[in-house]
């Protein structure tokens, strides 16, 4: 998990409602209402697609 539960300025993260979402058929846990890109990174999913011609991975930028 790549979440930041404790932070010197922002404090402890108040846990939101956990929801299950499916990414390419695989279930992952996300926090309700959060940005999908954040949920993916939190679960270690970096590649959002492969390019059409050269099949190269692409992520958020």
């Amino acid at each position: 998990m790549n979440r930041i539960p404790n932070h010197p300025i922002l404090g402890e993260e108040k846990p939101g409602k956990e929801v299950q979402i499916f990414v390419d058929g695989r279930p992952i846990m996300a926090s309700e209402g959060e940005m999908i890109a954040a949920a993916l990174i939190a679960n270690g999913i970096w590649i959002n697609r492969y390019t059409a011609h050269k099949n190269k991975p692409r992520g958020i930028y």
Partner: protein
Amino acid sequence: MKGSLKTTGAPSLEELHNSPAYPTNEQLRKGPIAIIECIEEIPCNPCEAACSRGAITVGENITSLPKIDFEKCIACGACIAACPGLAIYIKDYTYSDTMALLSFPYEYYPLPQAGDTVQAVDRHGKYICDGKVIRVQNPKSNDHTAVITIEYPNEYFEEVVSIKRIVIS
């Protein structure tokens, strides 16, 4: 410009000694005082208002460099957390025969605890010596800028300015 603020990121001792706020060697070793490492003209003056003794002056022009009147400074530390640049700390050369005291701002998680042994570092984050945490202050009014006080061997008096981040694995 070798070893200067604009090439290495941290001010050199020469640059500091040439800035108006930095104490002379004599003032530095006389007792507890506030030290401001602010050598660039940026528009900023909260340190001035933070000092109830009127020891810190920026003046009408808010980009002027701060100055400290060391006669008025009582090293209360109110300026430490007030400085948005985290550029102020308190040092006391006279703390004991062998140890000096340093109070500095710290905004990382987790905070050290009183009694902990910590790694004291210089302006480039280089380990200099071990230090012992005397107290940790983090009142609400500091708005999450904790003030850590450590004691450390006074032979490293001028170079030590902070501690290594505590990393939880």
